[in-house]
């Protein structure tokens, strides 16, 4: 027996790879046609809209998402798919038909299958037309990391999964990034803040073998970690400080929920609890105010209070939003599609949508007292003092007015403007005959009643279960007035069953979402975390794990992480630590010439990624580098100055500008008013907070350049940094420039950079020396002798704060 040499090698190589990877060859690397990888995406994109799960739009009784129907004889007498017989399969005849009347998809859609795509279907049918469950609905089975012979690159199993793929592609991983890059990357990823110069020098000179791990631990323990990772969550929660819609009324205490998130992330509240408290904290036994505050998650929906609207219509829209948010955030499914009709691509019926809807239809909005630390104590002690005075006055009244005192007191207890005619007459008649001391006593009593301390106004926006449950219906075509069948709370049948009693409620739903049997929640959640740390998810479509989404690039790694996440008690910090301490994470992010055409999007992870900071962190970076940043955490939002016309286009125009240190707080504390958001945030792609956002855009626009160059906040930062550099203990230009680089980009300048900036600095110095008015406008209060140099430093600081590197994480 002799094999041609070449193919023998190929087979041998394949065997080697298979054995090296154990049972873990990744789905999208296997030869031949794979249903999940190759076929379902085609059927989903071109066929399911009319031949998929939605019975309402199904044509010819054919559905191609289920093997039994796809392979049975249709009304027309044809059979769409005959396994092993492409020539008898009507599906193939139709997609390849030259006749416009027969061709599928219909010519009116503007779509047709390419020869290559037709071939995929042909091969699949030839090889038996095997259907299988969509990958994300399958149970998670703990994968075994591939046992690779590596050169010491593998630090933990993450690296083994990544390296297996790289070896398969014949690609080496990138080298580890230099220390200053690693520090800045970690600091931005974990805190959303650039490292401070002392941290840079400290880390660069720390020669201990576990310096990196200790750095990771220190950052994970920082209270700013909760801000950074809390903000990620707030995107999903679409948190905002106003109602949206026409009136766009402020929500004065929405921030209590925001602070709950920061705190929960900081204390690493396990993700299952994190889920349960936000969706059903009010239903926990003996729920605390804090647990109820967590349900503020559900209150982030927009509210329409426009005069004349049907409030019921908008109440229902809020529930639809809650279902969609749970779909996108936990399940990675576009459940919202099933509001009006059964889902066209995923096995979610319209009925199932309204079963989920029913869970939330029982939650009423309730604002509860949620006093801040100390607030209640202050109130109680003031109330106690007031009550003591009240008893004293009451006794005195009884002494003076004897039998009339009760009636008098009752009348005086009523606010002057609300007293009845009888009460007024009574008071008048009693006081007419009273002496001056008695009159004075009565007025003192009256005044005192008016001074009764009011309980703390701080109220958390929460939900509470309704006493009398509402009936939920299917809304035909999503129209709330058009009621179909009634439905009871329930979960989609494609997922593991709900464990609940007679009448399932929100707490059951929340527990079901984080049940270890649920294959979606852990996969979706670890994928979110991965995306924040690599700029791209292992499933690139972070919000779609359905058949319209992409398959995972590293399916086994995804599942391994999901299992680890649950094994580590759903600890966000533990999972993040695991990822950060991998070699994969530590690679350089420089684009590799040889991979540009092979892996342009860095799917294989042969390097780290480089991406722009999020809007809030752009502001944070400027404030931090300048030294102006106020690092206080939580509390009411702030209002930076903005031109009047920004808010005046809307109906809620009030914008009371913050003062003092509040001006320098982090971006995430800027009051987010939905109709007229703070412009800088939108310019840098902060989400508009209308619906859940799991993946921010990263645009690159001239308005961003104008903001960094000219916005007063950024200019103030440049002025503060320039002034600090000019006042620095260092005396030479190079030393000062090094300090400037450490503060802005966390590294020392390279000679070419120093040279170029030196030229810029000298030119500006000269120019400002000749134009002292301009120098004065820029540099402010400084002696004449130092003026031009100070202004030149400010101009130089402004250049550094406009560098692409300054607003990127590398």
């Amino acid at each position: 027996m002799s094999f041609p040499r070449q193919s023998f090698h190929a087979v041998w190589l394949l065997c080697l790879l298979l054995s090296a990877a154990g049972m873990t060859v990744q789905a999208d690397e296997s030869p031949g046609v794979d249903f999940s990888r190759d076929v379902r995406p085609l059927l989903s994109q071109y066929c399911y809209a009319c031949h998929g799960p939605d019975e309402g739009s199904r044509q010819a009784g054919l559905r191609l998402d289920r093997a039994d129907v796809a392979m049975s004889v249709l009304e027309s007498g044809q059979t769409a798919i005959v396994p092993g017989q492409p020539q008898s399969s009507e599906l193939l005849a139709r997609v390849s038909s030259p006749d416009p009347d027969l061709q599928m998809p219909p010519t009116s859609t503007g779509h047709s299958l390419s020869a290559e795509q037709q071939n995929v279907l042909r091969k699949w049918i030839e090889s038996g037309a095997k259907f299988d469950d969509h990958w994300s609905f399958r149970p998670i089975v703990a994968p075994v990391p591939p046992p690779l012979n590596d050169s010491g690159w593998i630090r933990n199993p993450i690296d083994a999964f990544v390296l297996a793929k790289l070896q398969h592609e014949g690609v080496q991983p990138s080298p580890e990034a230099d220390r200053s890059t690693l520090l800045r990357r970690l600091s931005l990823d974990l805190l959303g803040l650039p490292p401070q110069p002392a941290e840079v020098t400290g880390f660069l000179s720390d020669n201990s073998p576990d310096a990196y791990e200790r750095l990771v631990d220190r950052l994970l323990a920082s209270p700013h970690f909760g801000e950074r990772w809390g903000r990620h969550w707030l995107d999903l929660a679409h948190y905002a400080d106003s109602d949206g819609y026409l009136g766009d009324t402020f929500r004065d205490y929405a921030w209590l929920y925001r602070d709950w998130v920061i705190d929960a992330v900081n204390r690493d509240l396990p993700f299952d609890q994190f889920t349960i408290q936000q969706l059903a904290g009010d239903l926990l036994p003996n729920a605390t105010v804090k647990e109820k505050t967590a349900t503020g998650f559900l209150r982030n929906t927009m509210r329409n209070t426009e005069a004349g609207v049907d409030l019921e219509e908008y109440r229902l829209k809020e529930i639809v939003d809650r279902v969609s948010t749970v779909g996108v955030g936990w399940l990675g499914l576009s459940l919202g599609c099933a509001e009006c009709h059964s889902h066209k691509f995923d096995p979610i019926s319209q009925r199932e949508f309204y079963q989920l809807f029913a869970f939330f239809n029982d939650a009423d909005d309730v604002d509860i007292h949620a006093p801040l630390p100390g607030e209640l104590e202050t109130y109680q002690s003031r109330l106690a003092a007031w009550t003591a005075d009240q008893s004293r006055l009451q006794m005195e009244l009884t002494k003076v007015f004897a039998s009339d005192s009760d009636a008098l007191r009752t009348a005086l207890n009523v606010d002057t403007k609300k007293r009845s005619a009888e009460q007024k007459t009574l008071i008048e008649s009693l006081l007419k005959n009273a002496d001056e001391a008695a009159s004075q006593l009565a007025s003192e009593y009256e005044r005192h009643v008016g001074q009764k301390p009011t309980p703390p106004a701080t109220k958390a926006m929460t939900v509470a279960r309704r006493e009398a449950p509402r009936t939920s219906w299917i809304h035909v075509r999503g129209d709330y007035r058009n009621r179909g069948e009634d439905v009871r709370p329930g979960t989609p049948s494609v997922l593991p069953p709900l464990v609940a009693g007679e009448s399932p409620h929100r707490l059951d739903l929340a527990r079901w979402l984080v049940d270890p049997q649920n294959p979606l929640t852990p996969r979706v959640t670890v994928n979110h975390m991965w995306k924040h740390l690599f700029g791209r998810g292992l499933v690139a479509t972070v919000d779609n794990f359905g058949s319209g989404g992409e398959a995972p690039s590293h399916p086994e790694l995804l599942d391994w992480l999901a299992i680890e996440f649950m094994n580590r008690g759903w600890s966000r910090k533990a999972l993040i630590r695991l990822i950060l301490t991998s070699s994969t994470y530590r690679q350089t992010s420089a684009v590799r010439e040889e991979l540009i055409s092979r892996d342009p999007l860095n799917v294989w992870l042969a390097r780290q990624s480089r991406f722009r900071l999020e809007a809030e962190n752009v502001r944070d970076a400027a404030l931090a580098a300048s030294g102006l940043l106020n690092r206080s955490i939580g509390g009411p939002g702030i209002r930076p100055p903005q031109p009047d016309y920004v808010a005046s286009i809307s109906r809620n125009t009030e914008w009371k500008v913050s003062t003092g240190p509040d001006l320098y707080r982090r971006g995430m504390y800027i009051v987010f008013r939905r109709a007229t958001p703070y412009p800088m945030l939108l310019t840098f792609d902060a989400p508009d907070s209308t619906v859940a956002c799991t993946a921010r855009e990263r645009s690159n626009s001239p308005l961003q350049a104008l903001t960094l160059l000219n916005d007063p906040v950024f200019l103030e930062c440049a002025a503060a940094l320039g002034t600090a550099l000019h006042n620095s203990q260092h005396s030479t230009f190079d030393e000062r420039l090094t300090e400037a680089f450490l503060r802005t980009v966390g590294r020392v300048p390279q000679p070419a950079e120093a040279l170029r900036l030196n030229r810029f600095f000298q030119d500006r110095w000269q120019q400002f020396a000749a134009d002292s008015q301009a120098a004065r406008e820029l540099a402010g209060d400084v002696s004449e002798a130092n003026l031009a140099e100070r202004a030149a430093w400010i101009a130089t600081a402004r250049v550094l704060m406009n560098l692409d590197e300054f607003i990127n994480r590398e």
Partner: protein
Amino acid sequence: MTRHAQSLQPSPTSLMRRRFLTGGLTGASAAVLASLLEQDGIRASDLPQSVGRHDPTLPRPAHFAPKAKRIIYIYLEGGPSQMDLFDPKPELNRLDGQPLPDSLLANVRFAFIKKESARLMGTPRRFVRYGQCGMEMSDLLPHIGSCADDLCLIRSMHTDQFNHLPGQLLMNTGSAVAGRPSLGSWLAYGLGSESRDLPAFVTLVTVGRGIPGGSASWSSGFLPSTYSGTQFRSTGAPVLNLDNPNGIDAMTQRASIDAVNDLNRLHLNEVRDAELIGRINAYELAFRMQSAAPELTDLSGETQETLDAYGLNRTEPDIKSNLGGKGLFEPFARNCLLARRLVERGVRVVGVFHSSWDHHSALDVQLRHNCLMADQPIAALLKDLKSRGLLEDTLVVWNSEFGRTPLGENRTGENSRVTGRDHHPYAFSIWMAGGGVKGGQVIGETDEIAWGVARDPVHVHDLQATILQLCGLDHTRLTYRFQGRDFRLTDVHGHVVQQVFS
């Protein structure tokens, strides 16, 4: 170069690879990139493919040859009364004071009217036949009337929403729920920019009472913020942060941008990330915008004749009180003139917004006032575009979220002081002109009291589909993937109104 269907956004890996191989870069952007890169000693083939993501500052080919290359979208928030402006109803005048038949009232909702005691209300307006086509419009619009032969008036518009913001969102973003990209953003996304110095989508706002939802009507929603309408002010610095800070003169600004870009180039050599090229371009565009935008709002180059035609120096008549406020004649006229200057400079979409036309009371007085404000400048804009040869490929739209009721508004339940009309979604009028629109025609018809559409109904989504079609875009193919789903301006609806086309 053909660009097949659907989404322009960075697509899933497999598609991306395919698109790259089949030439995902448009000819123009590829050429510009190549020249930029040569300056930096980098060959295009060296670059990561993320460069293939379209550059929003460059034009992109439409789905098919566009009739309109740009659009001026005049949005008069609040719901101008169609019976008093565009849709003559002698029968309504005859029935003035009569109740509406129960059959019509049974299934309707109003924002404020008390159905039981509501009475039909005629109009005091006189309708005039304008132009050679003899299009009937109210005596409140003599100037726009003089452009009748260029107008396509649609009297059979209808919508699903009878409250302002939902109606406005449906009209301007295709969905009554906030968060979707606006029409202008979709156009900017689909067609790119023709201007190298100005944004693709600019909005000019005459604020008046305040626009419900603020910037939602020109927001990019889930599209990248690059496609948002950039609000230009008619006076002062036209764009936020456009002016250099005090102490930074043009020379310092130029030198600073040069230094920034030089350092970015040094960094590009190291990290090879194409996004850096985008950043360098953005700084250059920002700098050009800093001179182009003030030049735009500087009207000193306009003749006195032009300024007078737009009515920039009119005396605003006194009015006791006005919903939209006072002092708006000059800014509105200026915005109309700026709209012409913007399209002249290649801006793709100009939104001209004004609020409010929400005349629940004092309709006669306040509608007359608003028309005095708007009629002359809008007509001047149409004529100006025409005389400059721009009207043939510039689409101009007059639009609002709905119309008003043929019933008088008896909010208090008494008929004594009925002076206005309530919101009316079932029938209203809008018009279009220019870019591929057949002028001098009326589309659709309402019943004899302007209550419902009697012939050729045009839904909001139909209008949107038609506008996209005029601009060379197929509304079913212009999509963007968000939350796992391909979104369209027209959702799953919309039929192009063929009758509109010339």
